[in-house]
């Protein structure tokens, strides 16, 4: 098995996530956190919540990107090591949700960084977020 396939296999088995809040109202963040607690427990898939972008494979981004958070999310994206993926969680991260035409909000993370999986919902249930991660793993194995 070539080294790259081994590396990809290992990376898929335990993807580490970093949760970045770009101006969210907290409900998506709490649902991401709820996915880590005993009832939904994503650690079964080896998913750990890592504090720094250096250790993260997947960026779970919540919140309609506010004007000041835009540069920060860009910097965090550039700091993450290369095989990186982005999941946009919640209506705000996908298209700005309720805050679409507010000034302070740029609306939608895909305006700043490329997004791999969109998880709609306001807030999406913890199992919908897990479904999003499963879809991402599916996309990576198929897409290579």
């Amino acid at each position, binding site marked *: 098995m070539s080294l790259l396939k081994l590396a990809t296999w290992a990376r898929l088995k335990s993807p580490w996530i970093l949760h970045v809040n770009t101006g969210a109202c907290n409900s998506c963040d709490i649902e991401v956190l709820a996915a880590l607690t*005993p*009832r*939904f*427990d994503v650690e*079964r898939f080896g998913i750990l919540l890592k504090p720094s972008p250096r250790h993260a494979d997947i960026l779970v981004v919540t919140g309609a990107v506010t004007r000041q958070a835009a540069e920060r999310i860009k910097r965090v994206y550039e700091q993450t090591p290369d095989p990186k993926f982005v999941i946009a969680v919640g*209506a705000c991260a*996908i*298209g*700005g*949700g*309720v805050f*679409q*035409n507010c000034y302070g909000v740029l609306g939608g993370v*895909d305006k700043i960084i490329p997004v*791999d*999986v*969109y*998880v*709609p*919902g*306001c807030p*999406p*249930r913890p*199992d*919908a977020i*897990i*479904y*999003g991660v*499963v*879809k991402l793993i599916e*996309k990576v194995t198929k897409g290579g």
Partner: protein
Amino acid sequence: MRLPSLLKEVWSNLFKKPVTVKYPFKRLPVSPIYRGKHEILRDRCTGCGLCAKICPAFAITMETIGDKVFPIIDLGKCIFCYQCEDVCPRGAIRRGKDFELASWSRGDLILR
């Protein structure tokens, strides 16, 4: 040294049934009135556009298909508040229970 009171809890947890619901293999029951993906009943819809006007997230747009006008719901923007279901005079939008809506591309979040 007095035993910390949490030790009893930790000990008794060893024998309890685990709380974790193994999600992809076993589904969690969803409440009967859960607000998931909508169902647009085309036959009832008269294309009045009330839902598009009231939507707080501007997620509903009206589109002419064939000769009649129907609502298109962009699930990416939608906040699943179901104000459209309340305001529709014909009851053409009904709530569904499906919450597994994650998708790769932004395009297929549009609900015809």
